[in-house]
């Protein structure tokens, strides 16, 4: 066990407490939305009512992409991103890279959305930000991920803020480990009969100790993602390439090969996709073509980790005839220590390395981390309660954020169901969040006691959770039979999860109410007990 001298232990306790109290509420927001964002794509399917279960990558696409390529100006054929949009439909973004007025490397080009028969359904010119931004049918999923990634603060400040929060969590995790004198004993110590402060300390300690390695991994990988593009890449590009970010990107992600600019049609996409699905054991999550329309065109398919591995898989093909060329690491042309380490950062952060099972574990541990942050804040306040009544506003703030944030996020789902059919979800999802947040803040200011406020918000959480599945159905979402007949289990699974969570919350709230009523009816009996 780590045994620090008393002076250093006291310092670490202070560092642990202050790292949490200064940024704890923002950190809580990032961790809660991060836990939910583990299931972001499933939430997208559930909310938009997508029942399709056959990937666009498993269907012929070469002809559709070829036709789109023919009507695209040559300057935008430098690269093509292929990805799924809507209900497993194909999206293709023909683009080139350029530097914007502020010196940032961006992509600019033409985005095509294809219908189920391969016909061009939508054609739009824009930058990567326009193409990968929120749409009406993914407004909820996008809002959730954007809250987690940058707290809706504009770039680069939002990413810097979440990066700093990641570092604060790293400090809290390491200092939390250092201040545990009896780590293994603390894992199992929960004194139910002890004073509230001690009991709360035990709850925080037990949940924190169990999730300590996870907190470290999440904080490390999260701060890596936040600082990667905002600070890391410009600094390393400055040192190694005199500030040329494009040269660094090409060195790290590029597929080396002899240039061959002769015109050639990319006819091998379907053959390559079929081979990639067979070789990787699953459809790609994303695919990209370099030098579209040239003899040296290459297709790279990106797949989630497979076969019990941690590193994502990517495969390279000759796009002109679909010949398999190589298994390529995600980063770098050949396997290397740095490439592997950078490659596993994403599965470690998103928990998508073993399908639904690892995602469920990551969600559970994310939920535990949210609980640790919430109980840690309450504990810090409880220890100071006797000394200062002026901290009550902070305690109210913790309760409002602790219960109000999940409530506002659930309200976003309600706003999405009501507004998506009219095509106004991009406005109403954030508006719903702000309205319910304002309501929670108002309740926080007006409610007489903090315990009652927590109970009221918990009750509201349960009621909204209970209301969401029927609201989804009323607003035109597919029923369980329709979803199951189409092979889509995500929709009934999420409905069930919400109903179970609602039942648990309401059982807790009404259980406490029952206890209080019983105590009022039999005060003498309670006192004697």
């Amino acid at each position, binding site marked *: 066990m780590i045994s*620090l001298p008393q002076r*250093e232990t006291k*310092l*670490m306790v202070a*560092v642990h407490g202050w790292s949490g109290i200064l940024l704890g509420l923002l950190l809580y927001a990032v961790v809660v939305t991060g836990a939910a964002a583990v299931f972001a794509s499933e939430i997208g399917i559930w909310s938009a009512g997508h029942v399709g279960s056959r990937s666009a990558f498993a269907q012929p696409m070469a002809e559709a992409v070829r036709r789109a390529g023919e009507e695209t100006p040559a300057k935008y054929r430098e690269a093509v991103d292929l990805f799924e949009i809507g209900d497993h439909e194909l999206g293709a973004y023909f683009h080139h890279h350029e530097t914007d007025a502020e010196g940032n490397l961006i992509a600019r080009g033409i985005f095509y959305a294809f219908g189920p028969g391969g016909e061009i359904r939508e054609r739009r010119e824009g930058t990567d930000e326009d193409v990968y931004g929120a749409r009406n049918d993914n407004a909820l999923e996008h809002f959730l991920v954007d809250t987690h990634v940058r707290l809706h603060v504009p770039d680069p400040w939002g990413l810097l803020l979440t990066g700093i929060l*990641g*570092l604060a969590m*790293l*400090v809290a995790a*390491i200092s939390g480990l250092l201040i545990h004198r009896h780590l293994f004993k603390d894992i199992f110590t929960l004194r139910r009969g002890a004073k509230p402060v001690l009991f709360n300390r035990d709850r925080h300690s037990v949940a924190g100790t169990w999730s300590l390695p996870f907190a470290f991994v999440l*904080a*490390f990988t999260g*701060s*890596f993602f936040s*600082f*990667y593009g905002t*600070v*890391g*890449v410009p*600094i*390393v590009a*400055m*040192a*190694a390439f005199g500030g040329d970010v494009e040269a*660094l990107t090409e*060195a*790290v992600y590029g597929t080396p090969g002899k240039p061959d600019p002769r015109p050639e049609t990319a006819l091998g996409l379907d053959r390559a996709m079929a081979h990639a699905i067979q070789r990787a054991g699953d459809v790609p999550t994303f695919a990209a073509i370099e030098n579209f329309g040239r003899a040296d065109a290459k297709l790279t398919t990106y797949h989630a980790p497979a076969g019990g591995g941690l590193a994502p898989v990517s495969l390279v093909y000759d796009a002109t005839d679909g010949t398999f060329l190589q298994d390529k*690491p995600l*980063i*770098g*042309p*050949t*396997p*290397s*220590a*740095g*490439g592997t*380490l*950078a490659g596993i*950062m994403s599965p470690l952060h998103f928990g998508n390395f073993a399908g639904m099972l690892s995602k469920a574990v990551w969600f559970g541990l994310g939920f535990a981390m949210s609980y640790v942050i919430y109980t840690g804040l309450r504990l810090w306040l409880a220890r100071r309660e006797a000394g200062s009544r002026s901290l009550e506003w902070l305690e109210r703030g913790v309760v409002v954020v602790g219960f109000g944030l999940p409530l506002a996020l659930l309200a976003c789902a309600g706003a999405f169901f009501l507004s998506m059919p009219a095509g106004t979800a991009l406005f109403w999802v954030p508006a719903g969040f702000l309205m319910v947040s304002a309501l929670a803040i108002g309740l926080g200011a007006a409610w007489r006691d903090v315990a009652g406020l927590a109970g009221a918000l918990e009750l509201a959480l349960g009621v909204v959770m209970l209301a969401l599945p029927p609201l989804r159905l009323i607003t035109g979402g597919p029923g369980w039979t329709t979803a199951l007949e189409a092979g889509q289990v995500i929709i009934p699974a999420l409905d069930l999860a919400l109903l179970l969570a609602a039942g648990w919350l309401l059982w807790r709230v009404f259980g406490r109410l029952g206890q209080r009523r019983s105590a009022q009816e039999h005060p003498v009996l309670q006192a004697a007990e």
Partner: protein
Amino acid sequence: MARRWIRIAFAGPGAVIIAVVIMAGMALWLPGGAAGIDNLVLPLVLAPLIWAALFFHACLDRSTARVAAVALVLLAIHGGLVAHKFLQPQPAAETTP
């Protein structure tokens, strides 16, 4: 009291600045590895841990002098490497014929 502020300076802004300079300098001395990219990727991946190491060293080392010495030596080595890179003559292709 002064020692306390030195410690705070090295744990706070000092750790951030030195971590950034180390990240830049590491790209110049780390080997490229099998794929020739380790020197570019490892500094990016390790940056949060480098910052954490500097932060906890500044907090926990009883000797303030050692805290300052370790941080400043790392700063000097990596800052020197970056400065040396920028002071090197430009490649021949970019010079005026």
